[in-house]
């Protein structure tokens, strides 16, 4: 884009809209991302309020009404997705399960991002030897079979939301570690880091004040994607029977339980599957949008679309 004009010397600085307004405008420009964000907000809302509002309904069994088919309006809106094999309304269960699903994914992503980024910063900026040692550690974690890890944690610590978070977090650490380290290795050679060194800035200051903020957008995008990945991983664990155990519920577990009835009552695993697809799809869409919105050289694509004259 070298033929796009730069700001010339002496001209007044262009007035820029405030950051929130600008992001709202860019969001408006990408309707997919907007829809994705709205859907994610809905999921978060479900996770926050669902158990309090519908916790009892979602647990109330009715063996006579098991596997009730969807779209039967007579039973009330909670039943329009049908009922599961214990006659519990699927819609209510999906709403209630949102909390564990989101909590596991968020917990795992936050924990792995925090640990991975910290280790990555150290590996990237510390001496070669420390860096190499950390990378070997990452290799070991990467090749440690996650299923074995899940079984170990499940066996030693027992199945619980926290422990599933632990398993998923450990397996995802290398992703952040490697990304951060690679970025740090590149950024530490940049001139503004040299400038900070010339001023006498300590390594700690350079890493936290100069390098971390530059890595952060990449990590945010990565974390968004990873959120989707972790949700899928959690459901796969549930499928194999080594994840969350009932009566705790997550969407993944609902699919796993419903698959036994797939030929006769497809809705049991269809709706939670759809919930996962929509959520991960939204996260993917949002992260694609973020990749553009956070990149000053790509941003015009969104800003242009939002204007009527384009």
């Amino acid at each position, binding site marked *: 884009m070298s033929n796009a004009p730069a700001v010339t010397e002496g001209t007044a600085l262009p007035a820029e809209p405030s950051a929130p307004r600008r992001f709202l405008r860019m969001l408006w420009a990408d309707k997919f991302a907007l829809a994705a964000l709205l859907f994610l907000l809905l999921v978060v809302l479900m996770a926050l309020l669902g158990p309090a509002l519908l916790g009892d309904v979602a*647990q109330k*069994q009715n*063996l*006579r009404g*098991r596997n009730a088919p969807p779209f039967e309006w007579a039973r009330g809106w909670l039943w329009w997705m049908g009922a599961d*094999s*214990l006659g519990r309304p699927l819609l209510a269960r999906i709403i209630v399960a949102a909390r564990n699903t989101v909590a596991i994914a968020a917990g795992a992503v936050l924990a792995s991002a925090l640990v991975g980024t910290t280790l990555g910063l150290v590996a990237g900026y510390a001496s070669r030897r420390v860096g190499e040692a950390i990378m070997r550690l990452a290799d070991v974690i990467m090749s440690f079979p996650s299923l074995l890890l899940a*079984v170990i944690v*499940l*066996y030693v610590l*027992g*199945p619980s939301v926290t422990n599933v978070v632990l398993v998923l977090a450990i397996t995802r650490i290398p992703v952040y570690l490697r990304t951060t380290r690679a970025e740090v290795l590149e950024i530490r050679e940049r001139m503004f880091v040299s400038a900070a060194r010339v001023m006498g800035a300590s390594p700690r200051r350079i890493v936290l004040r100069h390098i971390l903020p530059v890595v952060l957008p990449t990590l945010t995008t990565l974390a968004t994607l990873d959120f989707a990945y972790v949700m899928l991983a959690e459901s796969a664990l549930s499928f194999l*029977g*080594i994840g969350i*155990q*009932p*009566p705790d519920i997550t969407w993944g577990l609902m699919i796993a*339980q419903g*698959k*036994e*009835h*797939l*030929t*006769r*009552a497809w809705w049991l695993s269809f709706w939670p599957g759809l919930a996962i697809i929509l959520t991960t799809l939204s996260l993917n869409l949002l992260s694609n949008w973020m990749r553009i919105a956070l990149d000053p050289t790509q941003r015009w694509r969104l800003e242009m679309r939002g204007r009527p004259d384009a």
Partner: protein
Amino acid sequence: MLGRTMTWGALLLATSLTPAWAQDDTAVTIVLNEEVDVLEPCMATRSNIGRVILGNVNETLTELDVRGDGGLMPRLAESWEQREDGSWRFNLRQGVTFSDGTAFDAQDVKHSFDRVFDPTITCESARYFGGMTVTANVVDDHTIDFVVDPVQPILPLLLSLVTIVPAETPIEFVRDPVGTGPYAVTEWSPGQQIVLTRRDGYWGAAPAVTQATYVVRTDPAVRAAMVEAGEADIAPTISQDDATNPATDFPYLNSETVYLRLDASQAPVSDIRVRRAINMAIDREAFIGTLVPQDALLATAIYPPTTQGWNPDVPVPAYDPEGAKALLEEARADGVAVDTPITILARTANFPNVTEVMEAIQQMMQEAGFTVELQMVEVAEHEVYYSKPYPTDRGAYIIAAMHDNRMGDPSFSAYFKYHSEGRQSGISDPKADDLITRASAATGEERAQLWSELQAYVHDEVAADVLLFHMVGFARVAESIDWTPTIATNSQLQLSEIGFRN
């Protein structure tokens, strides 16, 4: 390896549009639910192995008639008798050859027994002979004596569990079992398939099936689909949900009994009122036809009704949540800590709908006033709670389990589940111990009588556990195949019983 890839590519290129899984009409394909790890005859009592080789490749001296009322029938033995000193003499069938061509005689029988008890390998059949010493004495080529200490009244039944191998078989696990059965293993590609082919020279009538191919699919929906799609002829276990076609899908009592084991040494279930309350709190009827197949039976014993000495007069506990509450209150008044949180521990994938069943039981108990949590655990952890020594540091728990007794005699269950020394026993009751000891040593009518007494006692007087259902399994059988499942289908599938329609 490379060759396989190349063939694969070549086949793909050939793009013959005819599906290549068609087969000739006297061969059958059977789709099993569990991987076959080893094909070792002395492991044939393990159901996944037994279904392939038991009665097909390797035979036993006796066998239990599961299709009729014949009771214990001769197979490789022609007759047997108990002698004065309590030992058993078996007269062996003559003119029998192994698939490797060698003749069958008493030495083979003796070797088969020695192999089972050899300390350098772990043969599963040995478990039925716990606490006994068995000595096999060859009398002549076709006569053999078994001296058992202590005297074992049901030895002929136990012998239906010991597969006979040639005397040349090494004392290590074999991968190419040799037996006297009508079939021989002709191909085994681990993870893919096992092929049995009918052999000439079998001593009995030649079966209709000439070749049987066994494949394994762990997903029940896939197994059902394979029969429907014509890829397989028999799927011995499919799920209840898939069993929708009466023409092909057959339910069968599968000798498994689901129950909740209570540990009477643990508060609050140490109080009999609490144990009774749990029994009353569960609406067993509600499960039938919903989460548990329509054909399942409510259990009053830990073994199925086909077992000797099964007592028809023991009633199913009535569903009475109010009564349960009252009993709980009564216990509370006496200072029993009825509010102690109790954890139900159940094994994932133990039987179809196990999670839902347990969730329902949890709710029913809660409605009766219990504080109940549910924890689904993996098999290894389940085992920690299920067998002695029981963990003492994990609070009050009830363990949900499934017990299999297809042998027709309660002795395969009673000692383990109700004797104070039994590995999975929750009670320590002198009267029960006495009944078990006496019944195990008795024969005939007396034996049946004692077992009946024990069943009534532990169920009605002790309320030792919460018996739930005798489960049914479902088999899907292609319409061209003439075969119905039996109570033994889980552990044995004799190809000679399969016929063809039309």
